[in-house]
């Protein structure tokens, strides 16, 4: 087990060196990524110049949701985001090359394509999250401190599962990028705001059906110590761990089915 881990770390290290070999482009990407995502934050701030409350929450509280969602998403994007190139792997035969090596297929693909250029986004997201926590008047307790660490991590695991599950669709339809993006990037945007701004079936589907409400909204409420306007209990904030595990199991099943399908169709 330790040996296998060492091999993957070596693969990830090689990927890092490969990306660093394009030095200028690496640093430009790193800086560019940090600037581009600034626009999202600006959107939130601009909205609050027009309205005092959004879905019942003030700007400081919304920024906790926003920061949590961004931290979770960018962590997932760093490690797993490149799986959206699945269709290229299928088309270029990368997948065949991976299948003839004595290692797991998904870990190899992930280790071969960690997006180090997105480190800038991760750093930026973590800073936003930390700053939002300090501005939000959180009644700190030991369990809230733990949750502040666990919530972005389980959110990241949740998004990782989504990336993998949606990328797997490429096994059936090679041109499936848009659907995958709608779920991953759409999910990120959904979780950046309190779910009370959405309504009806849309909220039910995304927040509860697809689980996005447990990335930022419920953990955020638990951190802020605010009761849910929708009336659900506050321990639901810890539900993010459970929801992440469920997402991983579902994604693993979809992935295995996808690989089996690929091996029987070869396309």
């Amino acid at each position, binding site marked *: 087990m330790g040996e296998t881990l060492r091999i993957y770390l070596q693969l990830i290290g090689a990927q890092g060196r490969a990306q660093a070999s394009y030095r200028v482009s690496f640093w430009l990407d790193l800086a560019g990524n940090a600037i581009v995502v600034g626009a999202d934050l600006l959107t939130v701030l601009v909205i609050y110049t027009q309205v005092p409350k959004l879905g019942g929450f003030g700007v400081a509280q919304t920024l906790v949701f926003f920061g949590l969602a961004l931290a979770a998403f960018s962590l997932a994007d760093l490690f797993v985001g490149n799986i959206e190139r699945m269709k290229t792997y299928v088309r270029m035969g990368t997948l065949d090359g991976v299948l*003839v090596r*004595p290692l797991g297929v998904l870990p190899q693909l992930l280790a071969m394509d960690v997006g180090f250029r997105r480190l800038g986004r991760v750093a930026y997201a973590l800073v936003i999250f930390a700053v939002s926590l300090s501005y939000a008047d959180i009644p700190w307790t030991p369990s809230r401190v733990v949750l502040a660490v666990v919530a972005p991590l389980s959110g990241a695991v949740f998004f990782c599962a989504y990336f993998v599950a949606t990328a797997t669709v490429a096994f059936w339809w090679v041109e499936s990028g848009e659907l995958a993006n709608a779920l991953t990037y759409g999910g990120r945007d959904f979780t950046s705001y309190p779910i009370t701004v959405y309504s009806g079936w849309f909220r039910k589907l995304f927040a509860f059906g697809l689980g996005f409400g447990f990335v930022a909204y419920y953990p955020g409420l638990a951190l802020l110590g605010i009761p849910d306007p929708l009336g659900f209990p506050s321990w639901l904030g810890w539900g993010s761990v459970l929801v992440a595990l469920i997402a991983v199991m579902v994604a693993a099943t979809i992935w295995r089915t996808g690989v089996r399908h690929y*091996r029987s169709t*070869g396309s």
Partner: protein
Amino acid sequence: MRVIDVRGLRKEFTVRVRKTMLRREKRVVAAVDGVDLRVERGELLGYLGPNGAGKSTTLKMLTGVLHPTAGHVSVCGFTPVPQRIKLARRIGVVFGQRSQLWWDLPLRDSFDLLKAIYRVPGEQHAAQLKRCRDLLDLDSFMDTPVRQLSLGQRMRGELTASLLHSPEILFLDEPTIGLDVVSKQAVRGFLAELGARGDTTIVLTTHDLADIERLCSRIVVIDHGKVVHDGSIQDLHLRYGSRRRVIADFDVAFTYPVDLPGVVLESSTGTRLVFAVDEVGPLAAVLAANGSLRDLSIAEPEIEDVISRLYQTPAGQVG
């Protein structure tokens, strides 16, 4: 020892054919249609066929990439798909058209990574690498990023990469495709040497018949997913009646009738005569005795001709 045992191997693909704008029809196509293949340890087997004959599909089923629709496959004693990882340690695979190397890193780094992936012990790795470096002249580009290598250099790197874990079987899918003459010679020379040592079984698909003539003691030809020939090159020539040619040039027109068993006059310009023969000796004696013979040359039968005739034969009518 038998290292590959394949019986009744079949692979079907479903293709959707567009009938009208909206209506599409599903059709099942058998890319590999009942292939039987037994390969003994140390054999050097050429696997031939026109584009789309099912060569790569067969190779993918032997290496554990694709799951057969039907049939029995055993490679190194393993069933490839469920036992993919165990099998992967015992085989090497080179895909001519795609790389197994780390594109942006020096060639040396790929070898280090493969050492880790296959968990090759230090001394074994060093010994294998040393041998490949010597035989394939890698030293001048070991520190060059793979993306900057020429195709020939890259292919030498790919061969090394596939052999570092000392596989029992080496599968090569078009290893000489796109290479220049010198690189082709280098690759062939290396494979010939590897084959001569006798401990590595080599299965090679190619379109380049020179590869086959130079390397393979046995060729399996498939067309439309079926094996149409399995045997030596000599068998193939025998079966399709391809014969050597004798080209004789004379100072003055040669007009004597030649009536020998197994000799056919193919063309004559008076001073140049071309014969198809089974044996050269008796004809050469007659030609030398009866005229002003200036020059005599013998041309080996062209395998291209034989193979192209084989491909043109409708499936199911031969073999």
